[in-house]
């Protein structure tokens, strides 16, 4: 439980910063201020300033928005397409839809994800939207597989049989009885994919394939400081720790939620 709380606090700090940045940031980050460049943490700039004299706290807040938005929408794509596919595959177990869904999943898993993300952004241009698509595509099979696996075991339950005897169709049973019972699984996996999405977005931005300037992103902040962080370490520490703490928070939350929501794990108490 401690982990869940720690994770929730970490995540709320960064989500809060991202939300706050929608209405307010301490400084304008479009404006350069060379007189103030490369300053360490101080009262007016709690996280210091970068090589253009921009306030790092403001950059981190806006970067949080980019990272969280990209990862969240990518999870949305994965769930939005993966869940119906997984439900359909399970409802028609062994049928041609099941076969196509599962083989398609195997195929996507065979492609090295980062390589394809780079390919997609290279074909369609580097932007936050294309980064979302690239990350989202790889979330689809994750959710499809998870839902199919979970749904298959539910289909053998007596209450599902009762629903079938009562004359409900497969689609209705999937939505009314199967899906609600998979919510816990989805919440836990969603949290994990969210954290992977944050890491993937940071990696793509770092090689210049994520959000483009002037939209700040944590990955690009790190790439921009590549030649300077040896003289001003906070340039690398601040964005790097932001990524680390957000991902850590999400992972702790995922683990905590799994323990909380899954009675089997709770009993085993690992």
């Amino acid at each position, binding site marked *: 439980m401690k982990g869940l709380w720690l994770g929730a606090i970490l995540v709320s700090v960064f989500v809060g910063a991202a939300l706050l940045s929608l209405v307010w940031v301490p400084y304008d980050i479009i404006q350069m201020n060379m007189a103030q460049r490369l300053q360490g943490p101080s009262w007016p700039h709690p996280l210091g300033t970068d090589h253009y004299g921009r306030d790092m706290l403001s950059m981190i807040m806006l970067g949080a928005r980019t990272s969280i938005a990209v990862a969240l929408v990518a999870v949305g794509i994965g769930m939005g397409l993966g869940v119906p596919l997984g439900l359909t595959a399970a409802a028609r177990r062994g049928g041609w839809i099941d076969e196509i869904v599962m*083989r398609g999943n*195997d*195929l996507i898993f*065979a*492609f*090295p*994800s*980062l*390589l*394809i993300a*780079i*390919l997609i952004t*290279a*074909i369609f241009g580097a932007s936050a939207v294309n980064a979302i698509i690239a990350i989202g595509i790889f979330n689809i099979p994750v959710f499809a597989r998870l839902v199919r696996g979970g749904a298959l075991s539910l289909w053998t339950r007596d209450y599902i049989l009762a629903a079938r005897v009562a004359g409900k169709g497969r689609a209705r049973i999937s939505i009314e009885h199967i899906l609600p019972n998979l919510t816990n699984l989805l919440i836990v996996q969603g949290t994990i994919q969210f*954290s992977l999405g944050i*890491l993937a977005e*940071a*990696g793509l931005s*770092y*090689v210049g394939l994520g959000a483009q300037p002037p939209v700040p992103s944590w*990955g690009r902040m*790190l790439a921009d400081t*590549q030649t300077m*962080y*040896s003289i001003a*370490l906070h340039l*690398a520490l601040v*964005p*790097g720790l932001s*990524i*680390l*703490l957000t*991902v*850590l928070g999400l*992972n*702790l939350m995922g683990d905590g939620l799994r323990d909380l929501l899954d009675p089997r794990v709770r009993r085993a108490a*690992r």
Partner: protein
Amino acid sequence: MGRFLIRRLLGLIVALAVASVVIFLCLEVVPGDPAAYMLGVNARPDTLAALRAELGLDGSAVQRYFDWIGGMLRGDFGISYTYRTPVSGMIVDRMWVSLPLALYALGLSVAIAFPAGIWAASRRGSAADLGVMGVTQLGVAVPNFWFAMLMVLLFAIKLRWFPSGGFAGWDEGLFAGLKSLTLPAIALALPQASILTRVMRSSLLDTLGEDYIRTARAKGVSRRRAIWAHGLRNALIPVLTIIGLQFSFLLAGAIIIENVFYLPGLGRLVFQAISSRDLIVVESVVLLLVFAVIAVNFAVDMAYGLVDPRLRGRR
């Protein structure tokens, strides 16, 4: 075992065929004509046509697909649009960086994860277990390129133990080559080792909860022997799966780390080829990497059969 093998082999071939079509189609939609890209905006139409014919770009899509696949089967990967050298040679050169790097990182990952995972599992709930789990939690969350930057600062710039980037080349000797791959390999191995440690630990814990372990313990087998002689072998199946996945990830997923350290590996080759519209290089390397992933998964499946005879009969 024979049927299992044939079934899996057929699956392997189908997966490869589909993957090759997908890759080819993806690159078909890339805007821009490579010939025009190579010759610049002022090229004369007849020069352009001649180059297109030379590169084999004037045929239909179906014809070009089969030319490409046929060539690959014969080991002829075509000629790079930008470098004008055989793609196969370029891939082999880069392989000499990427393959050792992936193996090095995988070796580190296994060397860390096995002892750490077994140690944590055998002292479940202790401070040591909590410590290992805490460290792995951090290891999974660290962006590896950031960790690489910090290592460069400490070990290359401050302490000068390792080069900050570039590859010395194997001609300089094994030591120099390994030295330039050490920091990248550590950066790649950190998250992988963390994941593997967790899988090792939980898989071993699952196994140790089985009845046959209890029986063995009840018959007077020591804890240590129960873990090493009975638990470990049975706990290896999920661990093998993850090792297989990690190897293919390390082979293809090193792009960002290769960029941090300016290593001339496969990932960097694809990255550069994409930006210069050198599609033939992109196609061939991506297909090769997909082949590697599928082949590694196949090998892992076969390894299951060796570790666990029960799986031989199943599909």
